């Protein structure tokens, strides 16, 4: 298509150059035939709206990568700075609130489209007929996407991120034997802290995306290898229906759907930007954590399991359900795809959507308990108040230094600056190219030695530009006290 666009602008002679360039490139890279192969994927029975979900997921994932990469331009993954930088992105940076909202709504959109993709594949019986690996890779991608949502939720380091992740990681300790160890591994310690944030950041930005790339490539390869399954009436292995190439009709439908998603997400991001709450405060005791909407059913389900039986609810039942889901193409071997001809498996599958009921139930319980409802309202209100506050930069520097605690050292710090010591030794004695740093010098030398070095520097020091310090004894004492405080 590129060459088509280029030739629109050009003349006859340009066209032949373009054609030759295309040829030149094709002979060396084979890209054109690869693209042709991709676009001419045969679809038995023709293009349909029902087939849009896979490419919509790919599109959403790419959008998450683009917005995520740019958000990382301002984000700092440390408990000290994460909240400030997200606040900076949201309140200060042009387009920041919009990009962050696109990223956040994008994650919800992925969960929705992922569910639709699974439902379509299931209802159409498109996992049948030598598609076991394709289905399993799809299940892995599902889990990885949920992992992305879970790890991304902590990164803003606001109250709800902190407490929701505290609860989320606590679930791990229900696992027998290795549970506590796993929890510590994920958190980087027994408690939530800056190491947790680093780990979640690396998972969210490097490890899980790398795995997603790998499995998406496999998923697409296996899909092309097996071929599109076509409508439910078609045989999954040898669909004997006339085919239509992917390009242009299916591509136009796919792009139309992607456009719809962009418009919806863009509108939401513009009208209802994603909120940021007050910074995480681990000492807070009344905060009621609630996960993102797609985890609410799980959250509600876990409430029903208490005490010694909880291992059944938290580990055994999910493991069985997971195995049933992953192993579906092995259990369900018949090639019959029409949903009305396989009531048992369709019935069993729709039972999973009881999860929706849990979601509603969770909301109902929250609203019925006046204390909970009031607290949730209060939390929402705190978020709104925080969003209205102007951005507060993090203050670093002289007045925040440790010297201020000791008045003598504080006076010495002023002298250090006033005498121009900082011109060579750096602000707060952190050193520059011209002179060494003075931090921890109080450990190397005692105060008498420091004083004598100041009054009469060694010949090496003098050669490097250190001047003898000539000041009143009081001031000298203060300067020495300051130097000793630089640890």
């Amino acid at each position, binding site marked *: 298509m590129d060459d088509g666009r280029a030739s629109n602008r050009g003349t006859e002679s340009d066209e032949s150059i373009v054609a030759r360039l295309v040829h030149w490139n094709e002979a060396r890279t084979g890209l054109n035939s690869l693209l042709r192969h991709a676009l001419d994927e045969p679809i038995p029975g023709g293009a349909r709206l029902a087939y849009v979900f896979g490419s919509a997921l790919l599109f959403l994932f790419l959008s998450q990568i683009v917005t995520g990469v740019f958000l990382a331009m301002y984000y700092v993954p440390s408990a000290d700075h994460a909240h400030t930088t997200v606040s900076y992105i949201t309140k200060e940076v042009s387009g920041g609130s919009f990009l962050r909202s696109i990223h956040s709504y994008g994650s919800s959109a992925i969960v929705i489209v992922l569910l639709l993709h699974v439902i379509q594949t299931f209802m159409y019986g498109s996992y049948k007929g030598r598609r076991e690996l394709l289905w399993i890779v799809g299940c892995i991608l599902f889990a990885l996407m949920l992992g992305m949502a879970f790890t991304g939720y902590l990164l803003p380091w606001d109250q709800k991120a902190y407490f929701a992740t505290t609860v989320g990681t606590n679930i791990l300790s229900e696992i027998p034997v290795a549970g506590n160890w796993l929890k510590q591994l994920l958190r980087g310690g027994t408690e939530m802290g800056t190491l947790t944030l680093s780990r979640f950041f690396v998972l969210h930005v490097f490890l899980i995306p790398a795995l997603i790339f790998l499995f998406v490539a496999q998923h697409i390869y296996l899909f092309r290898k097996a071929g599109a399954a076509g409508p439910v009436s078609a045989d999954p292995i040898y669909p004997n229906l006339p085919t239509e190439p992917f390009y242009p009709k299916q591509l136009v439908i796919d792009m139309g759907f992607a456009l719809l998603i962009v418009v919806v997400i863009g509108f939401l991001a513009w009208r209802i930007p994603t909120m940021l709450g007050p910074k995480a405060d681990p000492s807070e005791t009344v905060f009621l954590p609630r996960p993102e909407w797609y985890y609410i059913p799980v959250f509600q389900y876990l409430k029903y399991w208490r005490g010694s039986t909880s291992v059944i609810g938290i580990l055994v039942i999910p493991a069985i359900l997971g195995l049933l889901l992953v192993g579906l193409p092995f259990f369900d071997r018949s090639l019959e795809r029409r949903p009305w001809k396989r009531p048992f498996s369709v019935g069993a599958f729709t039972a999973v959507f009881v999860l929706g009921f849990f979601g509603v139930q969770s909301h109902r319980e929250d609203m019925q308990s006046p204390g909970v409802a009031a607290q949730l309202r209060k939390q929402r209100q705190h978020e709104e108040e925080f969003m209205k506050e102007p951005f507060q*930069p993090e203050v670093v520097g002289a007045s925040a230094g440790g010297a201020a605690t000791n008045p003598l050292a504080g006076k010495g710090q002023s002298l250090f600056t*006033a005498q121009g010591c900082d*011109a060579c030794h750096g602000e707060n004695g952190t050193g520059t190219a011209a002179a060494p740093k003075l931090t921890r010098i109080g450990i190397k030398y005692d105060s008498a030695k420091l004083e004598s070095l100041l009054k009469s520097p060694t010949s090496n020091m003098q050669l490097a530009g250190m001047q003898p310090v000539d000041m009143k004894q009081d001031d000298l004492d203060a300067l020495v006290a300051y130097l000793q405080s630089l640890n």
Partner: protein
Amino acid sequence: MHRDQQRANDQSICSPPDAGSPPRRSFLGGLLAAGTAGVGALLIIPVIRFVLHPVLATTTEKSWSEVGKVDELQSITVPVQKLVQIEQLDGWRRTVSQKPVYVLKNSAGQLAVLSAVCTHLGCTVPWIDKQNKFVCPCHQAVFNPEGRLIGGPAPRSMDVLPTKVEQGVLKVQYQFFRQLTPKKEAVA
């Protein structure tokens, strides 16, 4: 346009010989290209604004630091060193640091504030009371009590900083100047 695009399509990727009617395919191809370009442009604008924020944001807000009460400074006869606290915005951080300046009375009897940074190579210049002049310890540049250059390697006199008086308090706008140039030139 149709003819051109169709020919381009024939030559390259988009139309296999065995499927689709060419005019319809090229029309849909055009639609796709236009749609993609439109959506791309729509999304790229916030991204560009986001990336260019530090370049385009107007951070020319001048910050004024307090030097001292005018009443108390009126009595000075020789340059007096004061430390001013300056704040600089560095993205999401506000850095606070102290800088030495000299308060003195110029020949017109007005209070003036000089930067203590030597115009030669940036050392901090001390006031030497006994000699009644500023002498830079690094390379012996010498300035008179008003900061005017009277000897040594410095290219110009000490730099006068902008000041104002608000509610009886002398305030200075701290600036950094380029070293080694005969003309005073503010940087960042």
